[in-house]
């Protein structure tokens, strides 16, 4: 798995080598969708390149699910150009469906079938399916393959979902909030599995509510708000994150107020009642030196010291904040 921040695949995805037309898996231009006069999607443009994990973020009701359903061929659009694997999903044929894998946001698997039976049923739908035991192995359910799906845990059922999306050996996989409701360790192993799909050369269209998930997996992120794209970038650059001032947070000793800090450090913001403060700085070393000189002089101990760019979550919340 890639470490957050470092983005070798991102540069490759955006580099001239990958951006030519033959590597465009999804191309959307001027997409609009209205329901009874309400415009849920208002002019969305997107491009997704072969082999990348494209992450689509946005609050509930922003038009995210509508857009995904149009791309999957489950919904008709009002206007705009959509090409997925070179075809219009609205008129997609069986051949197209065999090249696209879909993990829906909320779907249960057939509770009365075992994991193996369920995969055999779906394998029968495809012209050239992958081997059933191989796919079960890929999602880590080999030991549970003879168990009925209804008896699996939520996380395991979601793995069956993913397995069903992969059984037809698709080129493009839609993953709509694949880890919602997972415990932390199940999410961690789901991420490893999704990262494994990238290694197989699949193109992944991921939607999620978890910023750590986007940070761990995404090559590229696009944020939708009120039906329109408001930001695009890598996890490291989204919303100008790479240019934003560093945030230095630390805890002051008991009885010391943030007002006592030297003025040269700039304005300090108290984060809570426990003496935790944050200062913003463009020049971390200079600020740190001033801070430590002051602390040594005053014989204070500074604890919980943390230096970082704004978290992806902070950037996302700022981008999607409702207008005041």
């Amino acid at each position, binding site marked *: 798995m890639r470490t957050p921040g470092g983005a070798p695949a991102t540069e490759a995805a955006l580099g001239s080598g990958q951006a030519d037309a033959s590597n465009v898996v999804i191309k959307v231009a001027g997409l609009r969708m209205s329901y009874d006069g309400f415009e849920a999607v208002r002019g969305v443009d997107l491009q997704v390149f072969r082999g990348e994990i494209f992450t689509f973020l946005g609050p509930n009701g922003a038009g995210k699910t509508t857009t995904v359903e149009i791309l999957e061929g489950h919904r008709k659009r009002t206007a705009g150009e959509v090409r997925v694997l070179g075809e219009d999903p609205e008129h997609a044929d069986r051949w197209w469906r065999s090249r*696209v894998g879909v993990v*829906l946001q909320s779907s249960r698997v057939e509770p*009365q*079938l075992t994991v193996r039976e369920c995969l055999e049923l779906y394998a*029968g739908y495809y012209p050239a399916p992958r081997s059933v035991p191989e796919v079960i192995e890929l999602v880590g359910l080999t030991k549970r393959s003879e168990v009925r799906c209804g008896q699996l845990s939520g996380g395991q059922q979601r793995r069956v979902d993913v397995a069903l999306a992969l059984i037809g050996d698709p*080129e493009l996989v839609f993953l709509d909030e694949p880890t919602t409701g997972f415990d932390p360790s199940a999410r961690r192993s789901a991420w490893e599995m999704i990262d494994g799909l990238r290694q197989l050369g699949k193109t992944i269209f991921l939607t999620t509510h978890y910023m750590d998930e986007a940070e761990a997996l995404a090559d590229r992120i696009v944020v939708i708000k009120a039906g329109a794209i408001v930001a695009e970038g890598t996890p490291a650059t989204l919303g100008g994150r790479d240019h934003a001032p560093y945030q230095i947070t630390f805890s002051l000793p008991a009885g010391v107020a943030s007002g006592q800090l030297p003025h040269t450090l700039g304005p300090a913001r108290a984060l809570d009642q426990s003496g935790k403060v944050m200062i913003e700085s463009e020049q971390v070393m200079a600020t740190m030196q001033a801070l430590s000189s002051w602390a040594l002089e005053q014989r204070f101990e500074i604890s919980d010291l943390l230096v970082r760019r704004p978290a992806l979550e902070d950037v996302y919340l700022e981008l999607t904040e409702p207008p005041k």
Partner: protein
Amino acid sequence: MTSTRVEPGSRSDARLVAHQLRYDLLLILRDPQSRFFTIALPLIFLVIFTSLFGHDTTHVNGHKIKFSTYYVPGICTLGIIATSFVNLVITITAQRESGVLKRRRSTPVPAWVLIASRMLASAILALVLVAVIVVIGRIAYGVHIPGSTMPAFVLSVIIGAAAFCCMAFAAASFIRNEDSAQPIIQAITLPLYFISGIFIPTSQLSSTLKGIADVFPVIHLNNALFKAFDPATTGSGIAGKDLLIVVLWGVAGLIIALWRFSWSPQSS
């Protein structure tokens, strides 16, 4: 692109129906609710009614018959509706609301294959259930099995199963969530059973009730099955007018289903 285009032809589509059918039957047989309400309950009704009143007689169409002979085709009607309508509405509503149908439609399997397979599964189950009811009637209660009218009996079962399957797809399109499927369907079918001669001969009903029953398909399927089953029937035993009404209901169901049926969850 490395993958080669594989065009599934019509021959492999037939194989696809067979493939899907195997799993559809498995899903019905493994579901405890289907096992009880669809398979066990009609047999329990048969045993209860025939044991209670089987040796009494009643008058139907102007001649006297034993109640056991009357109940066997009646319970067959109930069995056909249980498999082709009640069970189908409940299972496809549940599959639609849990996203199973939508996921299947995300794969290359054609919609008609899924519909044909599920209807075939119901029809096969209906035929087997009817056969079991008739055999139990013969062995336990000495009920006569039709000879020359057997083709008419089988034909009526198949037409009834097909028509009620179409009505099931239409009915499911009006039900928004899976929890309400069972009560709604029972509320529709139970009163119809009572006024359509399934439990009580229609000769004992008021003309108003009988007039209401005549509008709906249950009494007509029951009439068709009874005519083919009645030892006093002469000729082919095909109740043309009754079967026509059942077919018309089926066609109406099909049209509504084609217009309204959705593969995506409706609640939420």
